[in-house]
């Protein structure tokens, strides 16, 4: 594949709104995708992430707003003139064409000479590791192979923007994990601006340069995976990414207390009136020798312990009745040394892991 002949394009979305009757699928959405970036739209089903992708592709006509690829306004450009690659959730490979017929279709439409089509189709198939599969029928392919053919078809005409709508959702977990890495490598190699839609937070964290968390037709936060995980902007993002425990805290100026006990924390809390303490299950640890100085200590009662292969999960109930989850690596841990159900335990949270977030949903 000739990767660098055509430069990747930035995408600029401004004030896009789409309503279906009384339902707002998109509410005044603005978003900038940098050229060559891998950006993921992450959100629960019905959040509007797919609607936004369909607006980018031209299949959904928004009520208002602006969409630019580079400097060019394309909001009214029909889909077939937008010149962007796209993979569909169920692949949408044409069943009446062979693999080569499918991959060559966009080139045929662009009136590329036949010998060049054959050559570029084979190159694209090799890029997705399906060299020599051109003569196969679509119904002879496995799910993973179909995914690769769909990918080859969407990149063979060297679009400067690539859209992907939950491309891995139909694959089993092992193949999905492998394809995530492969897709990311392919993106780095071809360098096209990529917008990826998924509801799988792990997939988003694994692949993306930046993630836009979408909920109820709005972008809740746009950040790098690391910032999103460690500095969620609000309760929704914190709740959606990772499995966290949330504890209500009271604020007085810069001091924050849980259940009357002042908390120690390293990062300044956000400027919101109502705060919530977010505890990631892998951040909190079990102390075998009582409370620790300089950290936040919680006394609790163990309610159950679950062995999960690579890790164990301890659920405990704090003295005020709220539940808290703790995850630890199972390897090397003497499971007999773990508390039994009903034991009193001390849980310790370091100041740098004490994350205070805006308690509001949005």
């Amino acid at each position, binding site marked *: 594949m000739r990767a660098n002949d055509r430069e990747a394009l930035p995408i600029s979305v401004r004030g896009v709104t789409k309503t279906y009757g009384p339902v707002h699928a998109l509410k005044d959405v603005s978003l900038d995708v940098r050229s060559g970036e891998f950006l993921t739209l992450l959100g629960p089903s019905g959040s509007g992430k797919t609607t936004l992708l369909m607006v980018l592709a031209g299949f959904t006509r928004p009520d208002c707003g602006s969409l630019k690829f580079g400097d060019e306004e394309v909001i009214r450009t029909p889909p*077939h003139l937008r010149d962007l690659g796209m993979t569909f959730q169920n692949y*949408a490979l044409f069943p*009446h064409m*062979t693999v080569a017929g499918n991959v060559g279709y966009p080139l045929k*439409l662009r009136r590329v000479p036949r010998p060049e089509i054959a050559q570029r189709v084979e190159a694209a198939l090799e890029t997705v590791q399906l060299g020599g599969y051109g003569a196969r029928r679509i119904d002879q392919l496995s799910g993973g192979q179909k995914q690769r053919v769909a990918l080859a078809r969407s990149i063979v*005409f060297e679009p400067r923007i690539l859209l992907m709508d939950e491309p891995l959702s139909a694959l089993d977990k092992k193949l999905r994990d492998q394809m995530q890495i492969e897709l990311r490598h392919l993106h780095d190699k071809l360098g096209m601006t990529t917008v990826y839609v998924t509801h799988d937070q792990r997939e988003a964290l694994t692949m993306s340069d930046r993630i836009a968390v979408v909920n109820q037709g709005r972008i809740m936060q746009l950040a790098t995976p690391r910032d999103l995980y460690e500095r969620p902007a609000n309760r929704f993002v914190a709740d959606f990414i990772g499995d966290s425990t949330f504890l209500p805290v009271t604020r007085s100026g810069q001091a924050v207390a849980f259940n009357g006990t002042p908390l120690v924390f390293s990062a300044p809390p956000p400027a919101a009136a109502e705060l919530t303490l977010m505890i990631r299950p892998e951040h909190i640890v079990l102390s075998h020798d009582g409370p620790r100085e300089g950290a936040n200590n919680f006394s609790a009662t163990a309610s159950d312990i679950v062995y999960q292969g690579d890790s164990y999960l301890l659920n405990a109930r704090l003295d005020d009745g709220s539940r808290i989850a703790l995850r630890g690596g199972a390897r090397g841990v003497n499971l007999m040394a773990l508390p039994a159900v009903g034991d009193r335990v001390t849980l310790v949270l370091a100041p740098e892991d004490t994350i205070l977030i805006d308690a509001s949903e949005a």
Partner: protein
Amino acid sequence: MQALRTNEAGLRQDGRMERLRLFGLSSPALVLILVILVIPVGWLFYLSFVGSDGHFTLENYARMVSQRSYFRIFATTFRVSILTTALCIVIGYPLAYFLSQVPTRVANICMIAVLLPFWTSLLVRTYAWLVLLQSRGLINTWGISLGLWHEPLPLVYNLTGTLIGMVHIMLPFLILPVYGSMKAIDGNYVKAAANLGASPRRAFWGVFFPLSTPGLFAGALMVFILCLGFFVTPAVLGGGKVIMVSMKIVSNIQLFFSWGAASALGVVLLVLTVAILWLASRLLKLDQIAGRGH
């Protein structure tokens, strides 16, 4: 070793019973087909080889080869059937496409309109066309009074009238399978084609149309086969000018009491129909292979 084969005989028996019960469900239909189809057709086949003197003869078939009129009747039958099928495709395919694209609620209402003729007697519909099409009928009266034409147009008792009536009656048989296969086409195929650069026209001819052809072939074949044996409509609206095989069969029996000649015509029509079905199935398979090849 004995332990590994536990319950083997019993399990095999269960499997046999299951298949037997399944077969039992289809037995009423099988008996019915035997009684109302296989036996009468066999009887016709036998009759076609019996002469007026009650002995074995090939004269019923020889007559078909030697007399030009028989050739004309078969030619007419095929011409009317092909024209009807072609007109049904031209009118029915776009309508089925429209139905497949509008919201289901609208499509259901329109579908009732398509199916309404099915609930009315064939004879009633045919005579209704006669009323509309004849020289002092509704269409000619209106056309002349509106000044669209001055002499009554010959719309009935000829090929035109026959085709109008037959297309009207056959249209649902084409629309239903075409609509079915269009509804089964995943909307993402057309979207994918558009995304890859196909204009709406190219996406239609390159992707949508090829995927709808199974329904189109099924519908067209059904219409064509039904037309081959059609009697009422051509008899009424053709006015004796359009003579099809079925009409010749009736006249052989009712006018000449010649069961042998009528049977021979039936047998030839049946053989031709089966040959066409066989040919069509061969062609369709070839077409699928060609479709996959490009």
